[in-house]
């Protein structure tokens, strides 16, 4: 039985969500990879987890706060040092077109 678990369209949709651009060929290659991986995940369905709480984090830490005091911020120069494009004060980005 060949269960296609994910379609090329779904792959392209997920790629869009993740802001990745795939050619048709890349999408097909990814589809095959993802399909195999999704099949591997079916193994988890063997387990009954109805009454099992999820563990998102290995340590039970909650609400790690600090006092709201001003620290030593990074300088503007340090922050802009890796900018692909910059002017004196800011990062420069392509103009974001307004929709009609």
């Amino acid at each position, binding site marked *: 039985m060949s269960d296609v678990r994910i379609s090329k369209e779904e792959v392209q949709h997920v790629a869009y969500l993740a802001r*990745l*651009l795939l050619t048709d060929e890349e999408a097909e290659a990814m589809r095959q*990879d*993802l399909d195999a991986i999704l099949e591997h995940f079916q193994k988890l369905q063997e*387990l009954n987890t109805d009454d099992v709480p999820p563990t998102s984090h290995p340590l039970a830490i909650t609400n790690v706060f600090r006092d709201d005091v001003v620290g030593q911020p990074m300088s503007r120069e340090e922050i802009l*040092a890796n900018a*692909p494009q910059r002017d004196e004060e800011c990062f420069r980005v392509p103009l974001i077109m307004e929709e009609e």
Partner: protein
Amino acid sequence: MLVEPYELTAHEVCQLLQRKELSARELCDAVLERIEQLDGDIRAYLTVTPDEAREQARRVDERRAAGEELHPLAGVPLAIKDNMCTRGVKTTCASKILANFVPPFDATVVARAREAGLVFLGKTNLDEFAMGSSTENSGFFPTHNPWDKERVPGGSSGGSAAAIAAQEAILALGSDTGGSIRQPASFCGVVGLKPTYGRVSRYGLVAFASSLDQIGPLTKDVRDAALLLNVISGKDPLDATSAEVDVPDFTESLIDDVNGVRIGVVRELFAEGVQDEVRDAVRAAIDVLADAGAQCEEVSLPHALYGLPCYYLIAPSEASSNLARFDGVRYGHRTQERVADHIELYQKTRREGFGAEVKRRILIGTYALSAGYYDAYYLKALKVRTLIKRDFEKAFERFDVLAAPTSPTVAFKLGERLADHLAMKMSDVCTIPVNLAGIPGISVPCGLSREGLPIGLQLMSKLFDEQTLLRVAYTYEQATEWHLRRPEL
């Protein structure tokens, strides 16, 4: 000197430095020369920083000459995996998307190492964004295993492991999300320790999977691992997930005694897929511990083998979120192509900057978290994670330490598993459950295959019990000579 300085361990070198029989500068030069001699073939390093290293060494010698009291590790040369931010030194995560990124800050572990006077040799190679098990996913070039250059060093901390094995560094730092310190340590015949989650600050470690990542030492022996662990451990206000736990002097755990220590041998991790030679070497290692007085018995972690699918849902999901920041806006690569809007800016930048495995994992993670699939995949994986965590908790009611192979096989050949992604990931089947539970784990060399390839024994202990872990690892190491074996280079 009868031996070359680069052949020594950190604890041996420290004695010589403190007695002024060796200067930090001489030691630094010796290791840099070794790197120059070998790294054209091994390719452990992405960036070597000889000028900075020599300057740091010079400063240590100056301070020592002036009678200043220095940290015990002052002057010891250190290699740092290239996913930890080093101020003023390129940090690429082995990715084209960060090819020219120079951090304006040090990771906390880097700052602590710098403060202690360690000498920074450079940044080591890894699988891109730490995603991989062989260092073949590096966006630049693969690293070669010093024991057999046609084989992988393991991953993702392959560069650091290879550097230690080839004696291109005295100490090294790596990171471990699913086995990325322990597995390459095993493949390269060195010691690799993943501390308890939260033991070491993740600030400045470029995040892959935030609930799994930990930084740890790769070293020539267990004592060196304990020494380096002392430097990097401790609560950090800059990392909200770092634990409020006291840091003992881990070298006090280096006691050659396991009398009465209860060792659980994990049945599921000796199952199919484990090479005979690996199984035999690891069982022999456990026998050594039994002969030394440990009580060894089989234990079951019933959900251990579900760790792989569980991890390959959780880690990519977290990664898809963590890697969203690489968008070409504030740092890293930005596409030079024309873009119609900001979305195209992100798309083209990321298309150009990320390698195939990174894209694959981002896609899996995005899919698993997306509406309609979140419950079936991500949430399900989190529940299985609970089952795995509970297995360990139950096992630790009866045992102090658990034992298993670090990896089912010895180092495979470069290119061998590139087409078979699942086979590649199988090399992490023994290490992954440890990250899911958050407990500490260590790999120590326990043998060589018939072809002369290293085999690793993995030991695991309770949350924040690195002390028992180190004691058992040290006792095993002192009873054998595997840690003294070196590849012929």
